[in-house]
């Protein structure tokens, strides 16, 4: 059996993914399919750990579950390690954020309700590293992302795109399968969004583009955040978080609805606040202010 490769993916692409896939065969591995067609079972990421928290105990077994936010220039990965990842959990329990870390892990998804999917990472290995390795990872991840963008452009021109057709063009099997699945699920992908994500990540490495732009700022979307609405959401979350364990998503949706925010608007704003670190999820389905 060929070992599953470790995909290099920016958080911005990985957190956009809303498709989980399995061939359906017994014990077949699960994959997260990103909008650019990465078919991810395992991934390797390097970034800054900004927050580590034990969110265990909620399952009732009293075992710790470490929830880690790891940011790169494009967004934030959610990393969860519990009793079945003893080495990673032991390592993460010692980390003092902020810290550069490399993580190899398995792609996981969580769906609190129909149509909503969050991606996360279950670590197999965690290692503290330095900025030079983080920079190298950004470079390599940019190179891989560019390959996916090119493959996706070719696939869109094929009409209909087929796995065999893409393989014939020289793309590897896994990526070709991922792209065909991505096109079926996501429809027409906003290539501009990912082009600029790629450019921003590369510029992040270069001093000539730095003028005052810090990592979280580079992660901001092109659209200017609507501070009034963000303030409103933060307020709602704070009010509903009665026991300090987080506000439940359903209650937030209700409260925001009464204030005139649609669920789509709320989701967009919440994602932005999760990305910039104003909010986090102590457990999936609950949201807290930092």
């Amino acid at each position, binding site marked *: 059996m*060929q070992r*599953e490769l470790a995909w290099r993916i920016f958080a911005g692409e990985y957190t956009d993914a809303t498709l989980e896939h399995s061939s359906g065969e017994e014990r077949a591995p699960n994959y997260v399919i990103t909008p650019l067609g990465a078919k991810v079972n395992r991934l390797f990421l390097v970034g800054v750990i900004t927050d580590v928290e034990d969110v265990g105990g909620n399952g009732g077994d009293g075992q710790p579950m470490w929830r880690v936010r790891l940011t790169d220039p494009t967004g934030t990965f959610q990393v969860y390690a519990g009793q079945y990842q003893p080495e990673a959990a032991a390592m993460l329990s010692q980390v003092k954020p902020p810290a550069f870390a490399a993580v190899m892990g398995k792609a996981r998804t969580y769906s609190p309700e129909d149509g909503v999917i969050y991606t996360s990472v279950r670590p197999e*290995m965690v*290692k503290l590293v330095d900025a030079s390795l983080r920079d190298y990872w*950004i470079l390599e991840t940019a190179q891989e992302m560019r390959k996916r963008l090119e493959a996706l452009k070719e696939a869109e021109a094929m009409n209909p795109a087929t796995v065999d057709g893409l393989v014939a063009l020289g793309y590897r099997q896994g990526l070709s399968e991922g792209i065909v699945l991505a096109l079926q699920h996501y429809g027409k992908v906003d290539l501009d969004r990912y082009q600029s994500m790629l450019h921003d990540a*590369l510029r992040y490495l*270069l001093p000539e583009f730095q003028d005052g732009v810090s990592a979280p700022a580079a992660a901001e979307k092109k659209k200017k955040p609507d501070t009034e609405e963000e303030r409103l959401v933060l307020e709602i979350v704070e009010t509903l978080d009665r026991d300090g364990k987080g506000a439940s998503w359903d209650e937030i949706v209700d409260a925001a609805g009464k204030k005139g925010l649609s669920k789509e608007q709320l989701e967009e704003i919440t994602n932005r606040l999760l990305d910039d670190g104003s909010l986090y999820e102590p457990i999936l389905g609950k949201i807290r202010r930092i």
Partner: protein
Amino acid sequence: MDAAKRSIVRKYGGNPALLSIGTTKTVKELSAGEPSINLLAKVISLNSRELEQDGKTKEIYYGILGDDTGTVPFTAWEVRGLNIQVGDVIRLQNAYTKEFRGEVQVNFGNRATVTVEGGTLLEVASPQEAPLTRRNLDELQEGMRNVRITARVLDIERREVEVRGEPKVVFSGTLADATGKVQFSAWHDFGLEPGEVIEVEGGYVSAWRGLPQLTFDERSRLERGKETALPPLEELDRARRVWIEELVQKGGGVDVQVRGIVVEVREGSGLIHRCPECRRVVQKGACRIHGEVKGETDLRTKAVIDDGSGALTAIFNRELTETLLGKSMDEAIAEAKEAMDSEVIRDALSDLLVARPVQAQGNVTSDDYGLMMIARSVTVLEVDVQAEARALLEELGD
């Protein structure tokens, strides 16, 4: 059965009384996973290879068998007393089949019996009739026949071997063109010299676990090619960087270079102990074959290198591992003694290598567990990230 045949059978370790077990099949009828099959087939190609199994050197034969229904790759795991050569029609009994990279492969070891059917004629499905096709070296794949290549001889070695009691000479080494390298065996003295450009017509390709090998003999046409047809030797000798996905597709590669991140330093890295008898790795003081032994210390690294397109396990031997660690094996032993923990060296290797970009070079083969590189060199890379990022932005039109 005549006396001569029985003697061959005995020599190869089989029991003449058991010659009738198993099902007789044609090549076309073979499927993977059959525990006992019989086959009457012609030896179309034959190569030998020394491989290290659990630290012990062992010789095996591999090549291609054919009958009038098709051809199939084979591996002979026991070569003692196995006197076969290209063109022989052999009766193979109690062999087994396996799947290797999606294809059926015939295997036989010391349970099998092999008899050469002197005087038997066997037509092989479309033998040598494959049209003569020009190929780049990176296109060569197991089972190709009648290929035409232009290549430069990188190195060549003369070996004396015994085939059916008669001494024979085989010239083996490495060929290269601008696309890659292959190993070769020439069963005829063409007077080849390192550095020469040659054109070969009529060779055939076999492979050992994904390592392609071109074989030719006096029936092939060999001419000297134009010196200017290919880049100079030094340039061709330099290993090409390949993506691991290419190696996954081909199943291996001769003297290739990969660049990727070490994502894991596997168990069995660092200080290990080998059986003094057979060089297998000793587990908990015991050799799998020789029981309790006083193991001899060795040092090695099994690193998983992942380049974002695929992953392989690279083996760094004692010398390479010493260079990476910046200390000798004796110093490593002293350190482990001090810490009273032999795993400290593996931990040190993890600290040193995991998450770091490395460049490694060597032959890559594949088996059921994926790709494996026996590295002949490895370096931890210092990459000029800014320069590469600028170049990439420029390519993207920024």
